[in-house]
């Protein structure tokens, strides 16, 4: 009587609650969660952004506006020749695809895990450089309308560190990123160094020397 099996299935669900009471109880966010951006700085306090506008060029939502300028001789902002003079992100347009993070040659822009922020007018939705650049302790600025929790606040570049550098599995475990203000050179994320779970498709070669499965 397969007709009655369905009744058993629904009855068995009673007591297994999956939903959490969101504002009071928050689940830990995934390792590679895409939240609002931060502009990183080197350990010596210099800004990483060089004003190349690659992020603005790759952005599918056209939400980034960058204007580069030559570094002032006496007080350089970034180690290179130029720096991001104007940097604005419109969060009414951003779709958090992280293509800007992938495009950035200096790891200047990364995404934090913050998504709980709101605005009361359109102008406030445009974050400028003064709001995006990390504070002097290396953590994102805690703006009054943003609801941060401490652990996600300290972890703004894990997406980058969780992927294989250059998309090649052969570079697993190697560090190919620069240091960050307040944290130095961070270690690779756990998924990289811990043994991977077996691939679902058992026919696929388990040990590919060149790491061809870098999809």
């Amino acid at each position: 009587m397969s007709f009655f099996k369905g009744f058993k299935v629904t009855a068995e669900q009673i007591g297994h609650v999956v939903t959490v009471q969101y504002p009071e109880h928050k689940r830990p966010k995934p390792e590679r969660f895409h939240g609002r951006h931060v502009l990183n700085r080197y350990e010596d306090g210099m800004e990483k952004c060089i004003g190349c506008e690659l992020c603005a060029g790759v952005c599918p939502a056209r939400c980034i506006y960058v204007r580069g300028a030559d570094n002032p001789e006496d007080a350089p902002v970034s180690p290179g020749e130029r720096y991001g003079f104007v940097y604005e992100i419109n969060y009414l347009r951003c779709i958090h695809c992280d293509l800007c993070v992938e495009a950035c040659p200096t790891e200047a822009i990364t995404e934090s895990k913050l998504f709980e922020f709101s605005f009361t007018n359109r102008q406030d939705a445009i974050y400028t450089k003064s709001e995006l650049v990390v504070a002097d302790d290396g953590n994102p600025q805690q703006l009054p309308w943003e609801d941060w929790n401490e652990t996600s606040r300290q972890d703004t570049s894990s997406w980058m560190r969780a992927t294989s550098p250059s998309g090649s599995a052969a570079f697993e475990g190697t560090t190919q990123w620069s240091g960050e203000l307040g944290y130095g050179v961070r270690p690779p994320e756990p998924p990289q160094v811990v043994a991977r779970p077996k691939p679902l498709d058992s026919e696929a070669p388990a040990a590919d020397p060149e790491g061809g499965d870098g999809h």
Partner: protein
Amino acid sequence: MMPVALAHLVAVGDPLFSGGAGDTLATLAIVVLKAVVTFVVLLVGVLFMVWFERKVISDMQNRIGPNRAGPFGILQTLADGIKLFFKEDLLPDRADRRVFKLAPYLSLVPAFLAFAIVPVGGTITIAHHKTFLQLADPPIGILFLLAMSSVAVYGVMLAGWASGSKYPLLGSVRASAQMVSYEAAMGLSVATIVLLAGSLSTHDIVTAQSGGVTNLFILKAGLIPFFIFMIAATAELNRPPFDLVEAEQELVGGFHTEYSSIRFALFFLAEFMNTITMSAVVVTLFLGGPSGPGFHFLTWLWPILWFVAKLFVFLFTYVWLRATLPRLRYDQLMDLGWKVLIPASLGWLLIMAAIQLELWYAGVGLVLGLLAWAMLARAMRVGRERSASTFARGGVTP
């Protein structure tokens, strides 16, 4: 047998009205009081039922359900009701205004009236007047329920027709077809019970079932009328899996698409009131209503507790059905109603009638019933084959 049954009908009745003409005022007061109490209890019951349904179905879907208004969200329905009351009351331009405004009441009033015949407890004494714990015990009893559920069709049908919009119209066409089809099967299974009880009065039906589990009509009538009545009642209520009338995916909201504000709330009130009423009627007809073992203290309370406990089982079953079963297709609905339920209930009624007279009549009835069933099955198969071959030849089915 007939004279006995008739005498039975005349002899009983609510003791409230057998006191003579001396105290009509007190009698009237008690009747009004009972009506008000019934209405309030039913309204509170609806508040509870909506909350209960949402809570149970969210349990079955791994959710939490309403939990903000009041403890365990029990006041959620009240909050929704208040919200609906203050919403703008839209009246479509192309609507038939008078009928559009009338339809919700045609839904609600029968829903309330149908509950009037349900006995919810034993006999109580108010100010030296003995009376049944049921709003009315008319001699036509259960026929009144069938009449009311037929009138309720008009509420749905006129709502769809008066909206001046296509989806409500389609919904109401479905509704009238569905409710009319299933009414027949429901009436025939009720007839089986009436046959056993020898009376139409709900009070007598309950009395006939007192004194032991074996007296309950669910067993005495042989389970089949019970299942037929349950299926037909679910269809009458337009509840899943028979909610083709509302069918959100196909018809937006069905007959109440154009309704908003308090008129929409009235439809919902009626729907849930009907759910409670139908569960109560199933309890009355098949499970002996308020009868059950009691104790010597608080003698008036035990029947009510038994009634509520039995009612609760069916309310839960309705929610469970909704959580489990997908909606039927329209042709499946009609097939089930006309080709399965009506023949089955008719055949069973004949067999039960034969048993009442002589046992060997029942044997003859059974053989005749099987023969009729075989002929019906054969006719259906021939019909299917013919239409299939017509399709195969590229022809059009008539």
